[in-house]
């Protein structure tokens, strides 16, 4: 059951991820955005499999709910058409694949052979209470910095996107 769910969600995540960046049928940003939503939701599924229920919820809420809406909003606002099919540079693409492939190969190989085997196993139950405890005790400072970050982002976004120039 766990295995089936894993392969389902994992496959879906990867497929959707791929369709975000390299959709052979559509180069429309909206399509990409929709697949990103799908990708994120299936990722949330993986989170659930890993018993990180709170994070799964946050993932769906923040990403699928807020971030993606923002994306779509901007796409609509700017009325961006389908990405023009400009000439692909095969050398550039090849190099890109090579570089990415190298990183991917290194990571995958390292994971496959060197993942820690002597761990406790899938034990952590990601219930919300301990998470909150750690967050507000141990990591209160980063949490507060996050609030600053959001403030800065807010101020910045207003400044950058306000239409009239005072």
């Amino acid at each position, binding site marked *: 059951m766990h295995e089936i769910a894993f392969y389902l969600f994992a496959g879906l995540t990867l497929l959707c991820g791929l369709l975000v960046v390299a959709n052979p049928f559509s180069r429309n940003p909206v399509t990409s955005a929709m697949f990103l939503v799908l990708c994120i939701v299936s990722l949330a599924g993986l989170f659930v499999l890993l018993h990180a229920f709170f994070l799964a919820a946050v993932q769906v809420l923040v990403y699928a709910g807020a971030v993606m809406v923002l994306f779509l909003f901007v796409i609509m606002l700017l009325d961006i058409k389908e990405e023009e099919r400009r000439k692909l540079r095969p050398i550039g693409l090849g190099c890109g694949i090579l570089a990415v492939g190298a990183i991917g190969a290194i990571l995958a190989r*390292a994971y496959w052979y060197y993942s*820690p085997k002597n761990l406790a196993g899938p034990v952590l139950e990601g219930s919300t209470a301990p998470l909150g405890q750690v967050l507000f005790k141990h990591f209160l400072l980063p949490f507060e910095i996050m609030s600053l970050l959001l403030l*800065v982002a807010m101020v*910045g976004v207003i*400044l950058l996107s306000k239409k009239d120039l005072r």
Partner: protein
Amino acid sequence: MILELAVIAVALGILLVDLWTPAARKVQLGYLAIAALFAILIGSFFIEAGPNRHAFGGSYTLDPLALFFKQFFIVAAIFVLLISISFADRIAVGISEFYSILLFALSGMMFAASANDFIMVFVSLELITVSFYILTSFQRSRLKSVEAGVKYLIVGGVASAFMVYGIALIFGMAQTTNFDAVFAAANKFYSKPLFIIGVVLVIAGLAFKIAAFPLQIWAPDVYQGSPAPVTAFLAVGSKSAGFVLLLRMLFSAVPEAVFDWSQVIIVIAALTILYGNLCAIPQRNLKRLLGYSSISNAGYLLLGVAAASAAGSSAVLYYLGGYLFTVIAAFTVISILTRQADDEDISIVAGLHRRSPLLAASLALAMISLAGIPPLAGFFGKFLLLKSIVERSASDSRFLVLIIITLFGVVTSFYYYLGVVRAIYWSKVVPDYSEIPLPLTARLSLYLCIAAILFLGIFPNSLVNMANAAVASLRF
């Protein structure tokens, strides 16, 4: 902690006061900020720092290193604010927001100076980075500024993705994110590939901040596009924040004994030096030139890191101290010059010695100090850095190669730094000889910088002692 809180309070205060300040006087909020920062700076000298002063479960530390950098950042911010005040007329919207975001970035840097936990590293870095995304594109009526912002954003995003990924790996192996705990667990994951990959990815993420290989490529574009005060702050503050994090991570979480990361740093340093110096040779845009120069300086600074010794780290601190004033002086001049001519080509400095001897002397001194020639601060910094790697070279021939590359880089850098000096003092074509009016703030900033460059070059003793004391809490 009180220092950061004070800075944040000032930043918030400015945002608030802005509401009741008439538009014409908003620029003067800068003086308020400077006064406040100055008070904080003075206050910082009464704060006691010690190796065991931790907070929040060890994720925040206030050791001498942290305090040193906090003071460093405050000084940098004061100077950047000084430049900003005279730069204000070129910012279309929200000068007070500009100030406050600067201050938020400052607080991020100050948090970074104290970060003792990978989560803190990430969070404080993001605070700095996001602030800079905004600052960089603050002149949004200029396409270049926005373009710089976008580039900074994308490259920064990739960098933080890599860093986060690296942190994840380190976390997985060490089962903790706290530096001290990672260090304590060092034996457990000794030479585990995943851990090593994690560390390399974090180094890469920090390389973005310090503009070093492999994430140096944004620097010239962003330096060119950003408003001059922001570029100055990027060059001084952001880079130093990267270095304090690098030093702290490498020397308190992952000492060299865990794995031989010096190989990585050596390669990064060598490539950074080569890239920065070589690319700068044909460069004619002043700000872009300083962008490349910033890359090469990151390379020199990495020498001190690569040396993996107390001498090396204190050399990094000293060098940054000199670099601060040098870069500020250069950008003060550039920000004034670019106001005069809406052009950043090197030819705008032609005849500067007639138009404004002070500007000419400041820029020339800055360039000479960057080139590392006595009796200026840059020389002593380079001297210390070289000393730290020569120390290693006797037993390790990789450092010998590094020395040779460094020498090559330094000599190459003479070419373009002195090219600026030449442009100032003996250009063939001088477009005009009109005098350049100097705002008082700029004058003040230049005098202070010149004094500091000379002082640090001629009497390095005090800063050396401070730097030595500051690095004492690191583990080598």
